[in-house]
């Protein structure tokens, strides 16, 4: 295994190898990544990935912050699908505290998480298209991310780093405008996605660029601990939503798409199909919401669920509780818990050790981008430089999740 060995430096003047610094800031890498490549013509002989350019010490910070102050940190992991991270963190704490949330909250969460998954996959798939030369599709589908952000805005007031939700539910109920916008999205997005697929799925240029490039076998993928759409594109049907259902995913009817060869084209197809499944999940959740009592948007856990702002401003008791909760004054069980959710890029895990203090004793994020990316340099060996670029796009490496 010669993965990630030191850079091969060849001082032989006859050598025809060229050292190329791809990144840290390069327009084609969509983030802060550096790869030092040895090139023989256009072919990559070896490469070394250097990461950590936006490392922000989240795990250290988390050891000094009460639970509610950790939610904004999770926003900044995979910032293309922050709500999944937020929900994953809330569910981890709920698991620690043995809180059961009402069904309606589960369904609302599924709506938000699947919207986030769609926005994450839109980024990845449109960027594969962009990097293979199809700018139209990129601009065309990208506007739906804007619509998703508008829905977030109605739900929580923020767009990118959402900080959605509370331990036990949401800070407020979805308003009518939010539901109207979700329904509008459900009507308009499938039309656009179908058109997107019709532009690319059978596109000769796109297939020539992507099919058979960067093939990964299931054995390699599992060996490198891959998860998410990348693993599924190799043919392994592992999805945390099915394997360990959380948030009532087991009540829903959806399929886990898998690929066959693990190449870039398969990853693209898997992500596209997941968007269709997400649309169907949101539709099912909207349908199920009709059978649930309106106005329920959080569990009855006054010890951990922040009181309503009107109460806090007008009522001493609520004010005290507000401060106690924000400052982490309320005891949580001394325990350790691992909770995983299916993030946009794979298994997003939270390993939380609580020792009864205000803050976690230790919090570790299992970040799928970090773990998936470890194969990148190895995969690039023998590949054309232009293929390595779209390979990186198709892995959807998000710098925030890579570096934590």
């Amino acid at each position, binding site marked *: *295994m*010669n*993965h*990630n*060995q*030191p850079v091969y430096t060849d001082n032989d003047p006859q050598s025809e190898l060229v050292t190329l610094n791809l990144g840290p800031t390069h327009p084609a890498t969509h983030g802060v990544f550096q790869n030092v490549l040895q090139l023989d013509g256009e072919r990559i002989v070896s490469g070394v990935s250097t*990461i*950590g350019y936006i*490392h922000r*010490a989240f*795990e*250290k*910070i988390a*050891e*000094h912050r009460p639970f509610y102050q950790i939610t904004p940190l999770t926003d900044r992991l995979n910032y293309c699908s922050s709500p999944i991270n937020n929900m994953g963190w809330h569910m981890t704490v709920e*698991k*620690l505290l043995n809180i059961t949330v009402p069904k309606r909250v589960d369904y609302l969460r599924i709506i938000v998480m699947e919207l986030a998954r769609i926005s994450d996959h839109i980024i990845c798939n449109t960027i594969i298209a962009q990097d293979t030369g199809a700018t139209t599709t990129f601009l065309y589908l990208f506007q739906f991310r804007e619509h998703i952000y508008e829905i977030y805005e109605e739900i929580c007031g923020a767009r990118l780093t959402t900080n959605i939700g509370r331990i036990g539910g949401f800070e407020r109920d979805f308003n009518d405008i939010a539901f109207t916008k979700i329904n509008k999205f459900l009507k308009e997005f499938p039309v656009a996605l179908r058109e997107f697929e019709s532009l690319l799925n059978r596109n000769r240029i796109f297939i020539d660029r992507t099919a058979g490039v960067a093939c990964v076998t299931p054995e390699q993928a*599992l*060996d*490198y*601990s*891959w998860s998410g759409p990348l693993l599924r594109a190799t043919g*392994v049907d*592992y999805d945390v939503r099915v*394997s*360990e259902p959380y948030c009532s995913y087991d009540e829903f009817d959806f399929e886990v798409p898998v690929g066959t060869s693990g190449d870039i084209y398969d990853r693209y197809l898997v992500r596209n199909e997941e968007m269709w499944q997400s649309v169907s999940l949101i539709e099912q959740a909207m349908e199920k919401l009709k059978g649930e009592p309106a106005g329920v948007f959080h569990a009855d856990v006054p010890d951990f669920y922040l009181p309503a702002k009107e109460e806090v401003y007008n009522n001493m008791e609520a004010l005290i509780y507000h401060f106690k909760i924000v*400052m982490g004054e309320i005891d949580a069980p001394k*325990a*350790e*818990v*691992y909770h*995983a959710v299916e993030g946009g890029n794979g*298994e997003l*895990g939270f*390993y939380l*050790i609580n020792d009864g203090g*205000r*803050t976690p*004793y*230790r919090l*570790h994020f*299992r970040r799928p981008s*970090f*773990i998936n*990316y*470890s*194969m990148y340099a*190895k995969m690039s060996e023998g590949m054309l430089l232009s293929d390595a670029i779209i390979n990186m796009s198709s892995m959807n490496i998000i710098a925030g999740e890579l*570096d*934590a």
Partner: protein
Amino acid sequence: MAEVNNSSVIQLLADRFGAKVSGVNEPYGLLTVETTKDVITDVLRFLKETEGAAFSFLTDITAVHYPETNHIAVVYHLHNMVNKIRIRVKVFIHEHTPTIPTATVLWNGANWMERETYDFFGVKFEGHPNLKRILNMDELNVHPMLKQYPLEDPNRVDKKDEYFGR
């Protein structure tokens, strides 16, 4: 295929390793065992390759520092995707001699996980092909997740923890 569950795995481990595997616990349903660093590679290989355990997927490697007992716990999360069970394996090593055999002989995915653990806790994974810092700069001369290192610059006077209720 025989059913694989927490109790069957506990039985398998007890038969094979006896007292070398201890501290069996199931917090929130996740089987947790402790072992020692002289058998950790054997334990991981056994868990990965034995039929009836088949934890073939390495989910994560990380560490936890316990300064009161002078220990660093290296924590492995393994996953059996077919039977949908997980196991957590902990190894307590002394913080002054933080060495443990590498798991890269079993999974290539362990490479970066161990580099991250080394970077933040100083755990030296013996036999690792390229054990160097991954997220922090190479010039950093501490392993910042150890508990003795404060979050913020201790010389600052305007950010004392007690002012912030921390």
